[in-house]
């Protein structure tokens, strides 16, 4: 088999242009051709996205300037997600980026000391011990590293942006670097009769686009990975029953908050993602419990500003493609699987698929060994994210509707069940070094959802009462000092990366 030289990306949107832009940067268009095929006819899904910190690695790889990127995509900064009514009606908790507390001596996580402190009467609001949480609560933000003496923590953050303009931004980037864009709808696929490898895709107007390697960014249709290679799909709807989303942007009515809000509703949850020029909203739900019309009506009723378009409905099934890479075809984005955007993981999955492809990129032959490792690693990532999301549903005190009664009582994957048991026992969520969601995330969510550990690591008992109070107070003070040093989020945006008026679009 010859060297992989011609790469064809089937489908645009965030997935397609993230892939094309990354190829353009990393492989270049001297030794390779990179072609992206997309159709204006086919709408792309983007409904206003929130992201998580690893996206900075992608932007850095491309050499993208952060301020320019924030301006061009009407972005705001995100310190975490606020979860309202998830534990029970009237409750709220914050899932921050960043670390819970700080390392006290003894070598066990801060959560153990905090649990002991709460048990002896301390404030059970965990947000006071995470800089990102306090900053979010007060609407403050700035880019700050940890102070050189290690006393003040850094602020970890990600972005909230308009996915359509991000895709457009990346398209400009990619085309400037020699990526060829072809307009058209794929209607047929040519395969090599012996090997089964895809040789070309044919467009509605008869054009033939040939290639050595194909990236399937065709969304839920999964034209190549499923349409041609029948990779199969693991349906996860018994664990994640939501199968619809209705989305609508509305007018901005206040300064944008530096966090995403997720509010649990009667048959799902509602997102609120503040951008510079408007607010993105959506209701993710399960149509066995609520009709599309009813969901749209409820969403519109609950907006805090005037809607700017008609609501749009998306239909999906939670799950993952059994194989993300088959022969010379790699699925990126929705074609590889879908998890609801509860923890802003969609773009991350795109990014990881692309980055992993680089790690395994075939120079000459497409080797079964590489494909197998890639698929295993992506599987593990999907499973990890899936478990984290299911945790939000399983661990709830809500039982006010049939939907929540289902969620509370459903069985969950063993991997999650073991985590929940361990957490319930001792407040620990065993995480591995490269897991995306670490101890702080699991603690914030499980504790916030109402799973209060029976106990904590005995080493946390080795501090005297005084030492404990002192340590806890010290951390709180440091966080307060950090947060006090921050300007309001809106001011920071204004100073550094205000979107130009021309960039605003409905």
């Amino acid at each position, binding site marked *: 088999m010859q060297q992989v030289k011609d790469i064809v990306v089937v489908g645009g949107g965030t997935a397609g242009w993230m892939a094309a832009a990354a190829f353009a940067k990393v*492989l270049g268009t001297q030794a390779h051709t990179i072609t992206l095929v997309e159709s204006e006819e086919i709408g792309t899904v983007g409904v206003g996205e929130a992201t998580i910190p690893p996206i900075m690695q992608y932007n850095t790889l491309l050499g993208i300037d952060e301020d320019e990127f924030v301006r061009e995509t009407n972005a705001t900064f995100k310190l975490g997600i606020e979860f309202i009514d998830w534990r029970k009606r009237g409750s709220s908790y914050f899932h921050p980026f960043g670390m819970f507390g700080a390392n006290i001596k003894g070598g066990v996580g801060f959560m153990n000391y905090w649990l002991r402190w709460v048990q002896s009467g301390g404030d059970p609001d965990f947000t006071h011990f995470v800089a990102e949480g306090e900053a979010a609560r007060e609407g403050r933000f700035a880019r700050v590293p940890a102070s050189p003496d290690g006393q003040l923590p850094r602020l970890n953050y990600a972005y909230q942006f308009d996915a359509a303009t991000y895709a457009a931004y990346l398209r400009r980037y990619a085309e400037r670097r020699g990526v060829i864009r072809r307009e058209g709808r794929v209607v047929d696929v040519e395969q090599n009769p012996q090997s089964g490898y895809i040789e070309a895709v044919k467009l509605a107007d008869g054009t033939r686009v040939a290639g050595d390697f194909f990236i399937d960014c065709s969304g839920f249709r999964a034209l190549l990975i499923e349409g041609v290679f029948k990779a199969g799909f693991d349906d996860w709807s018994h664990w994640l029953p939501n199968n619809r989303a209705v989305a609508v942007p509305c007018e901005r009515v206040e300064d944008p908050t530096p966090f995403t809000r997720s509010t649990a509703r009667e048959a799902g949850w509602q997102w609120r993602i503040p951008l510079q020029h408007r607010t993105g909203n959506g209701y993710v739900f399960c149509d066995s419990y609520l009709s599309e019309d009813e969901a749209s009506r409820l969403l519109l009723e609950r907006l805090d500003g005037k809607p700017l378009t008609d609501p749009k409905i998306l239909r999906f099934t939670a799950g993952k493609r059994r194989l993300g890479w088959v022969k010379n075809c790699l699925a990126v984005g929705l074609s590889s699987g879908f998890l609801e955007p509860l923890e802003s993981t969609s773009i991350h999955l795109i990014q990881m698929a692309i980055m992993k492809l680089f790690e395994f990129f075939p120079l000459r032959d497409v080797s079964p060994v*590489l494909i197998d490792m890639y698929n295993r690693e992506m599987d593990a990532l999907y499973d990890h994210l899936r478990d984290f999301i299911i945790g939000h549903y399983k661990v709830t005190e809500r039982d006010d509707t049939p939907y929540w009664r289902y969620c509370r009582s459903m069985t969950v994957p063993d991997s999650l069940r073991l985590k929940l048991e361990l957490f319930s026992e001792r407040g620990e969520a065993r995480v591995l*070094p490269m897991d995306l969601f670490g101890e702080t995330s699991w603690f914030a969510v499980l504790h916030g959802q109402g799973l209060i550990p029976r106990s904590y690591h005995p080493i946390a*008992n080795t501090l005297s009462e005084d030492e404990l109070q002192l340590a806890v107070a010290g951390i709180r003070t440091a966080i307060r000092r950090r947060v006090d040093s921050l300007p309001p989020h809106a001011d920071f945006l204004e100073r550094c990366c205000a979107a130009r008026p021309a960039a605003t679009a409905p």
Partner: protein
Amino acid sequence: MSRRIEQVVVVGADAPAWMAAAALRQSVSAAGIRVRVIELPTLLQPADVYSALPELAGFHHRIGLDESLLFSLCKAVPMAGQRFSNWSGAGPPFIQGYDRPPPVAAGLAFTQLWIKGRQKGLRTDFENFSLAAMAAKAGRVPVPTQDVELRSTFGYNIDAAAYSALLRNFVTRGGVETKMAGIAELELDGDRIAALLLADGERVEADLFVDASGPQAALISRMPGTELDSWREWLPCDRMLVASAKALKPLPAFGQISAFRQGWVGLFPLQDRTAVVAAYDSRQISDQDVVDSLPALANVPISGDAVVSSLTQGIRKRTWVGNCVAVGESAFSLEPLDAVQLHITHYCISQFMTLFPVDASAFREAELYDRIIRRAAVNLRDFQFAHYKLNRRFDTPLWDGCRELAPPETLQRKLDLFAARGRIPLYDDETFQEQAWESLFIGHGLMPQSYDPRVDAVPEQEHIAQVQARLNDIVGQVEGMAPVDEFIAGVNSEQLQRLKPLDEDVRHLPTRTMTENMGAD
């Protein structure tokens, strides 16, 4: 009815028992948990040596042991790595050094540059690009500098009996109650140890028993369902011999592991002698023949007696049953290769401390501990077996057999991916990181067919410049390092504290944020 742990009894001898007791005393005694040691007869011979990975420094720091004592009391010699010779037939010896992993980054690993360079005619061996290996070759001790990319550290060889005595002293002075005794019987109550019956008649009860008795597994082996799963199918040596030779002058910065027809013999320099360790297959050669040919095999005259014992590589089917947890070689054991012996104990203790049980009526942590230990054990076993699998000796059935054996799937995947692409997939609970596996594979002659295509985007001039720069950086750093003898002479506590970065401890801590994990710093 849940209740807290109040009393822990450690059963064992030598370093493992004292390490467990020290860790417990330092961590949980202040919480009111009583720790007691039942000391079994020592298994150590005067000639025994412990070879330690750099990570052990983290353990010493955690328990508050002054490492300069290793040099003043335990004849310690710092080791930058190990040198493997005669494993590859006509191939040259190679050094596996203790390079520290470069920071996690989105950029190109240097190894990829080397692979392409090699394909384009670069003659310089991979080893020359390892700071630790070059330090070892020059007889110098790596110490941390400002360089973030190129970092190396040192492990050490220590006299086993002296080290055990040091730790014993440390623990007993700290107030831990100790009794020398033999165990007559275990009183079991289903899955739990109700009590130990000692040879002198005392009945010892506790909430938790820690089996730190080494391969004899005095407690865990008597619990239900804990038979040993043998790894003899892969690791062929079932006998071990220990002897002493004169001290080497000047002291080298590496241990030397030479393969011979029926096994391997290692020289482990100490300050006042050189420990000689041989591992071999009793089906191929008798104990007596090894003793007789030892001076020739080791290439040094042997002083004193050689002592032989058996090696049983394998893992218990269960490492934590009821109120009995196995730490160290009572849980699993391997060959005395790659400095893993003490590390096995260190690792188990760290994981155990992280999962120290909260409820004496139901040890829910057991299952997780067992899974973690099992994964770590498999990874270590694969690392050792890789030496055998990749051997290129064609002289005896032992070596042919190992080479032709289908390796465990976990190792096969590493070999396949590295051969295809120069990349090492790491699993959960790995001791050795990419650079250790790379130097092992490449050292034994496994050359990848392909490399990361991002290397092709680097212009040739720049590629050459980077290769050259790395060589120069290494030469520069090595020049600034002290030779081993000088290092030992100048050792003091403060200096050692400063030298060893503390993240070497294997304890699993939730310290990294998402951003840090992705290297966005």
